[in-house]
């Protein structure tokens, strides 16, 4: 389905995840964060960029993997994105929702 955000039209799935990463830009990331009640700090951006990079390298994302990233530990990850961190952070990053259970 189509959605207008930050003055642009994007295509998202039924859960609100971008279906085409090429449509993503930082303004859209910020607007998606606002929808999730998060104001993005430089620290948030580091994590978002990390997730995008992992996605590009086709790494399966999980909480355990985040904990081993060397960038952020699990505790801080939950502090940055308090409500469902992996789901929220990937949505902001414009990448698919990870299918991981761990």
């Amino acid at each position, binding site marked *: 389905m189509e959605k207008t955000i930050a003055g642009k039209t994007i295509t998202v799935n039924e859960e609100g995840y971008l279906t085409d990463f090429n449509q993503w830009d930082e303004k859209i990331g910020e607007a998606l964060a606002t929808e999730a009640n998060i104001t993005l700090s430089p620290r948030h951006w580091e994590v978002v960029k990390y997730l995008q990079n992992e996605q590009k390298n086709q790494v*399966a994302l999980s909480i*355990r993997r985040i904990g081993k990233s060397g960038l952020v*530990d699990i*505790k801080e990850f*939950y502090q940055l994105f308090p409500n*469902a961190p992996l*789901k929220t952070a990937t949505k902001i990053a414009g990448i698919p929702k990870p299918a*991981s259970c*761990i």
Partner: protein
Amino acid sequence: MNENKGAIKKMMIILSKATLENVYAAFVLANGARMEGIEAEMFFTFFGLEAVHKKKLEHLHVATVGNPAMHIPTMLGGLPGMEAFATSMMKKEMEKIDMPEVPEFLEILSASGVKMWACRLAMDMFHYKKEDLYEGVDEVITVGDFYKKSEGEGVHMLFI
């Protein structure tokens, strides 16, 4: 059940067993709840206490007897070394699917904000002290305390 369309807000997971498959089930459910933005608390009672006992938590085994899904004849399941063998097989498979071992899993749960409680009665029965337990265990509490912590709408309780 009509509040917030029955949305789950908090999972209260009671772990009463120390066989690896049950411990993992409890851990995965607690972690999965946190990943969805659902609060999670765990109550360790009876043999479930071994999952947070410093000296025992690294030595939990899969049950090979009385577990038809293992597809090992019960007579063989009881042979010496069978549990250890089945456990090492299972751990290999778990590593493949990125499943952490018990000590690392406890760290993940703790960092994810899962509250952990130990059952007072079971602690007394096994003569365990709070300092015998993993540091992430918040407190030793009674069943009554646990019910008190379970109050509120959207709270679900699970016994494993």
